[in-house]
């Protein structure tokens, strides 16, 4: 493949993006399409805990919740994955054996990415060796801002190599630190061409995290990449998506930008911790006709 000039990524017009988002958020997603969308959303969640205070008990509880979202309601799907720090991967893999729920690990000196290549590699290897199905890496935002796109590209390629074919790599752009939509597009292109299986908005540690406009820019980058290569790259907005309504708007945006094939957890994920409960609350409401108290749904 000929060398791609990442300094010349397609331009993004922010006003135009916001206009498009306004069209999407004006859509009315009701009745059976709402129910279907909610179930889909549940199945796309990467149930996440990434705290310094995480304990083995907490990770265990999270893993149980991932495949027992709310046993009161029969027929619920599992979440797509559980997302933890590398040191909990072994435990999570054990807990989730046979459930179909994947284990994702953040790596590469998450969340800042401020470390050496060796340490990032070791971090990744630790996750992979312990049995992670997916690795969520962060890009080096400092290098990106300084214009060293080749460094960013090479680093992603190196981590993808360490992941191997069977471990899917999600590349976190940390769009809240990237600044403009032009730059989001540019970082998306770098990540995809360097070997990302998924591109992901945020670590969840920086505000703003995922937004509809940023995600639309990334979906359009995925679409352009698909036009050219026929390769389907996944998308994961993470952080800041805590309501069902917003989740449904994301799904509709995916449908209208990339079509129905992307509407599975193979190609779309929500990185979220509190979204699941709001979706459960809505599903219970769709079934019973009344909103229940939050206290009927387990926090973890």
């Amino acid at each position, binding site marked *: 493949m000929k060398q791609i000039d990442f300094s010349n990524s*397609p331009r993004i*017009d922010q006003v135009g993006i916001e206009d498009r988002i306004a069209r999407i958020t004006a859509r009315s997603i009701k009745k059976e*399409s709402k129910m*279907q*969308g909610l179930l889909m959303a549940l199945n796309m969640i990467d149930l996440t805990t990434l705290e310094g205070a995480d304990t083995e008990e907490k990770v265990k509880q999270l893993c149980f919740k991932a495949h027992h979202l709310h046993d009161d309601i029969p027929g619920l799907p599992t979440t797509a994955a559980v997302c933890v720090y590398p040191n909990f991967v072994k435990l999570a893999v054990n807990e989730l054996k046979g459930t179909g729920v994947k284990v994702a690990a953040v790596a590469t000196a998450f969340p800042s990415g401020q470390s050496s290549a060796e340490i990032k590699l070791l971090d990744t290897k630790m996750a992979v060796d312990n049995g992670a199905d997916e690795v969520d890496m962060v890009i080096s935002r400092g290098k990106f801002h300084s214009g060293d796109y080749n460094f960013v590209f090479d680093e992603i390629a190196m981590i993808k190599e360490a992941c191997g074919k069977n471990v899917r790599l999600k590349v976190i752009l940390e769009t809240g630190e990237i600044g403009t939509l032009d730059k989001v597009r540019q970082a998306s292109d770098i990540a995809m061409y360097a070997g990302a299986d998924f591109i992901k908005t945020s670590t969840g540690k920086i505000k703003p995290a995922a937004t509809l406009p940023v995600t639309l820019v990334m979906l*359009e980058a995925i679409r352009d990449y698909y036009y*050219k290569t026929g390769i389907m790259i996944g998308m994961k907005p993470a952080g800041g998506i805590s309501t069902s309504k917003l989740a449904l708007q994301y799904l*509709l945006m995916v449908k209208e930008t990339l*079509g*129905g094939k992307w509407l599975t957890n193979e190609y779309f994920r929500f990185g979220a911790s509190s979204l699941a409960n709001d979706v459960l609350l809505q599903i219970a409401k769709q079934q019973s006709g009344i909103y229940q108290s939050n206290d009927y749904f387990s926090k973890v």
Partner: protein
Amino acid sequence: MKKTHKIDFSSDWNLAPAPESTTHFKLKDTYDLFINGKFVAPKSGKYFDTINPANEKVLAKVAEANEADIDSAVKAARKAYDTVWSKLSGKERGKYIYRIARIIQERAREFAVVETLNGGKAIRESRDVDVPLAAAHFFYYAGWADKLEYAFPNRKPKALGVAGQIIPWNFPLLMAAWKIAPALAAGNTVVIKSSETTPLTAYLLAEVIQEAGLPAGVVNIVSGAGLTGSFIVNHPDVDKIAFTGSTAVGKIIMKAIAGTPKKSTMELGGKAANIIFEDAALDQAVEGIVNGIFFNQGHVCCAGSRLYVQESVFDVVVQKLKDRMNSLNVGDPLDKNTDIGAINSKKQLETIAKYIEIGKNEGAEMYQPSCDLPSKGFWCRPTIFTKVSQSNRIAQEEIFGPVLAIQTFRTVDEVIEKANNTPYGLSAGVWTDKGSKIFNMTSQMRAGVVWANTFNKFDPASPFGGYKESGFGREGGVHGLEAYLKFE
């Protein structure tokens, strides 16, 4: 072009119908003329049916004004002008106009639903564009009513008298607002005729005007077809004709008022060039193309109906456009998720169908997304033509439907020449990431409005109007006031 991979837009997840409720109001069976502050039966004795173009059902019977009806409307307007309206201060006039604006806002849902029922446009548009903009126009001109001296310093502005106004069917309420608000602010009284296919919201506006307590005869609202319009145009006691509609009818009106002291403004047809440069934000440009041509089913005089794409990005722009067209919902205008509603009338659908045939026969390549259309009513899928020549009729004539003619260009000079090579000159669009290119283009385009990196955006403060056969005079902004004033 290199092979590209196609996106499959079929999905198991589809939006359930989300129709806007119609139970919060009741249409009357019959709408009479609104003359001298009252609803009165027409002297013509004639009523015509007005239908819902989405299902061809009759919505109501509407009075048809004849010459005698127009004469009483003009007399009422003249009397109101002489005895009340011209004697009121600008501040008092402004109060009435504000009141109209506020009542439109209060009845916004009703206005939106009736506009959609009667005209076929998607509720998303009548709710988010037509009605809020109509209210905004009244608010905006209400503010000017007591500031005319400041708008035109040292020019001693005076009202003209009775304004005769004729509006089209594509934006019935909004066009009424564009016409009535500046006329009242400038101190004129009004006789306005709505279109024969979409008369209903004008009569809702008449109810609003009653509710606002406007002095009798200041605004008179009538309905009927071209003949009724001609009675307004030819009435000797009308001081000004404001017309929005086709260029052909505009020419007839200009002939009719030649040699009379009547002032006039004409807002006529268009065939806007929408120009996409290779350095534009292409995905957003595609959105602009869609808004430019498919907004209101293309029933927009300033629609971006001629698309010029720089040759280097032609393939990718067309591919993205086709993909975007696949996510447009065509169908029930009352559904909140509908993007493209019904064609306004059978006659208009025939015109559009005729042009689509012409395009095919001229050798252009047509594309329409596959989507089901309702069995009743008047419908047209969004349509684009590639391999179009500048000399093709679909590239030269106004179609007034969701039909886009796409050509390519290589240089700035070439595209300016092509863009200006039209009898019209109402609007244009330029898409580029480069600011200097925008200013270079806009200064050379012969069009009344040139949008940069957007399309079909309207604001009451911004003047609107055409070059060449798109008409003359401006509506909106201070310019819009000037069209209803004379100066010493």
